[in-house]
Structure formats: C-alpha cells, structure tokens
C-alpha cells in the first residue's frame, strides 16, 4: 500500500507492507502490532481513568506514531530492504527534526496519514473455515 499524504503542509510518500512490522522491530526494538493494539485499548477511555502505564503510553504516542511514519516514509523512499536495514535511530531523529511542531504526530492529519496507510495494508477478503482460524481472526 502506497500513498502520498500531507503532514505540516508537506507531501510525504508513505508505504506499508508485510515487511513494515519487521523493519520497525529491527530499527526500534519494539513491536509495531503491540504498540498499535495498546493505542486501541486507550480508545474511548477518559484521561482521568488512565492507569499509570496507559498515561505513559498516551504521553509517548507522538513519538510512537512518528516512528511508524518514519518506517512508512523510508519504505516509500528507499524501498530496497538491504538499504532500509542500514538506517539507524539517528536517521530517525534527523528525519524528525524536519518538522516544526515537535508533537506533530498527535495532530489529526498525521494520525490519519499513518493509520490509513496501515489500515489499507491489512485489508483482507478471505475468511477462515476452520473454527480455530475464525477465533484468531476475531
């Protein structure tokens, strides 16, 4: 899935595919899917009801979405996985410095850019026929 989205008025190419979670893990030593699921757990909850862990997660969300956007942007720009695997955390922080607003990744346009690229990447048509696979899908 590849698309061009605008963040802070600048166009960014974002690409997401089955390699994205692997690339994310290799670069940041974190689990892309776990982080996304953690954010889903916050949905609909009021800040005053957050546990201390959830509050930390909520506070860190800007950097987490920036990490996801970085992976998607570099996958779109570079593509070649051997070149992608040469990137370091310093490349991420250099990339982040191009944004004027440090918490740009809490804005709706940036969140939509990341989440819509990811959602389109996970779209499925096939359904499992075995009971076990139906449980996994749900």
């Amino acid at each position, binding site marked *: *899935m590849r698309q061009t989205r605008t963040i802070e008025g600048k166009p960014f190419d974002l690409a*997401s*595919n*089955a*390699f*994205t*979670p*692997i690339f994310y893990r290799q670069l940041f030593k974190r689990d892309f899917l776990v982080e996304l699921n953690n954010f889903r757990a916050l949905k609909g909850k009021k800040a005053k009801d957050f546990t201390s862990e959830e509050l930390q997660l909520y506070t860190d969300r800007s950097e987490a979405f920036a990490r996801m956007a970085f992976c998607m942007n570099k*996958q779109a720009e570079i*593509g070649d*996985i051997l070149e992608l695997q040469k990137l370091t955390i310093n490349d991420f922080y250099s990339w982040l410095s191009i944004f004027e607003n440090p918490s740009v990744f809490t804005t709706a346009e940036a969140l939509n850019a990341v989440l819509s690229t990811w959602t*389109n*990447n*996970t*779209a*499925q*048509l*096939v*359904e*499992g*026929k*075995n009971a*076990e*696979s139906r449980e996994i*899908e749900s």
Partner: protein
Amino acid sequence: MGLSMDELSLISLGFLYEMMTEQDNDSYDYDYIADQSDINKFF
C-alpha cells in the same frame, strides 16, 4: 510459509494473512470436493 524479506516487502500484511488463512483452509473437511467431471461441466 517460506517467504523471504524481499517477498514480504512486495505484499500487504492483509495478503500475507490471507495466504495463512488459505493454508489453514486446506485442512478443512469440505462437504463436497470438485473433481474433473465438475470442471468439465463448468466449461
């Protein structure tokens, strides 16, 4: 599934999940399995 990193970068995660689902569907006990005569009727 035997996919390389390069191959993973060419497919969506949804497509990968579908391949895994279809692989799992292979073990499903279908009520009816088409044979050559069904294919002949179809064409």
